């Protein structure tokens, strides 16, 4: 295996695994909708990065943070359904980016590109993913309880707003890294697919979180190796393999549960 493929694989595996783990916390509808607009919100940042030649994740991150603060504040202030806020944020991100991104640059923004990821970049990706993983592990039980009942969580002393924010920031970091991997259009799938697949296969929280990580890791491996064979962009293939795994899990569901 050559070095380039190895660094691409490492980045894809850690980002995919942590994205899957984070995604397993998006159980109730309200949360599941967050990853989508965040990817799109990153679009202007990615566009800037491509235009001026700096790192895509670096461009994406501040825009995602802005977007998150925006959603967080809007949710508290307006009490509008998250779906509505999502639609607004989503459209805004895409349209701003399309104003100044030349179309020929759009492909790697839309579908990602990690074929040329550098070693330094891989190490940064690895470290950031590890940090997010540890944070997620720490807040996992509390967010699960919030998913079950916010009232119960509050009584147990869980500061809902604080944990929501920590969670959103973790999602933001992973989305910023994921944008490089699969592009702005597909990051939502990177977060949502593994957990959806896992949920078809188990009713236990422990297995569910393990399986989410497992599928988060598995589809990047399949996708990347496939892209070496059939020469399609890796990002697209990662999501397609993830979708296939999900389809398979639907058929297995009836046999297992």
């Amino acid at each position: 295996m050559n070095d380039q493929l190895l660094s691409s694989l490492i980045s894809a595996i850690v980002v995919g695994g942590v994205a899957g783990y984070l995604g397993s916390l998006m159980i109730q509808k309200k949360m599941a909708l967050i990853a989508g607009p965040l990817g799109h919100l990153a679009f202007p940042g990615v566009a800037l990065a491509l235009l001026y030649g700096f790192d895509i994740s670096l461009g994406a991150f501040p825009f995602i943070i802005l977007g998150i603060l925006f959603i967080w504040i809007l949710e508290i202030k307006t009490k509008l359904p998250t779906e509505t806020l999502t639609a607004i944020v989503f459209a805004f991100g895409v349209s701003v980016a399309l104003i100044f991104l030349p179309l020929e640059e759009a492909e790697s923004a839309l579908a990602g590109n990690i074929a040329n990821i550098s070693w330094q970049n891989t190490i940064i990706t690895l470290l950031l993913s590890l940090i997010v993983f540890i944070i997620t592990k720490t807040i996992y039980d509390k967010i699960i309880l919030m998913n079950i009942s916010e009232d119960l969580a509050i009584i147990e002393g869980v500061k809902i707003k604080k944990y929501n924010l920590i969670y959103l920031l973790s999602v933001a970091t992973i989305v910023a890294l994921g944008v490089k991997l699969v592009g702005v259009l597909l990051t939502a799938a990177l977060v949502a697919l593994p957990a959806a697949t896992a949920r078809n296969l188990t009713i236990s929280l422990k297995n569910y979180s393990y399986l989410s990580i497992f599928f988060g890791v598995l589809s990047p491996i399949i996708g990347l190796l496939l892209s070496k064979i059939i020469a399609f962009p890796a990002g697209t293939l990662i999501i397609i393999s993830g979708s296939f795994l999900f389809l398979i899990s639907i058929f297995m569901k009836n046999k297992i549960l």
Partner: protein
Amino acid sequence: MKKVVLKVSDLQVKLNNENVINNLSFSVSRGDFLTILGPNGSGKTVLFKSLLKLIPHQKGNIHWDKNVKIGYLPQGLTQLKLKNVPILAKEFLLLKKISLKKIHSLLRLVGISDKDILNKQLGNLSGGQFQRILLAWTLASDPNILLFDEPTTGIDIQGEKNIYTLLRKMQKRKDLTVLLITHDFNIIYKYSTNVLCLSKNIACKTKPLNALSSENLEKLYGMPVKFYKHNHN
């Protein structure tokens, strides 16, 4: 004279600029079984939430004895809402950071003899089983005061009776103080030591029989309501 564990004086709570609770004063002593009775929208749940400091109050005082440990069962949490949460009953109880041994003793306490329930998905339990698991959850932190907000919503009559019988038994055994919101007059008649009536027009604290008098019920609900005593055996 029993020890006062909760004293509420001149409580006023506003929600969206509307007065939900106005000038409410009452106290609860140790071992009391206080039922809160009133029509929908009379502020019963809001009262609980402000007692628990989940929502702020505008005026008045809520004073808890410093030795109280509160267990709270919120309104409207049913297994149906958790169908899509992949978590076993056991894993749910483990979120309380308690040992398996403690879980087993809690199950005995809430009258679950079938340990297999622990390995079922929380959202797939029957209504009665789910309420018992919730009860176990609430009891896990060894509370001495229980605040229950319509704990039997969505349970059939037999299940409901079981839950209340259980609650009563536990109250006696563990010397608990109970504050209960319910619409069930029979529960009030059979178990309550005191009743707090809450509505837009009146707020009163009285004994169960007075609370259930036709005259009082009409004042409370704004229309004639009659309570017929049943004898469950």
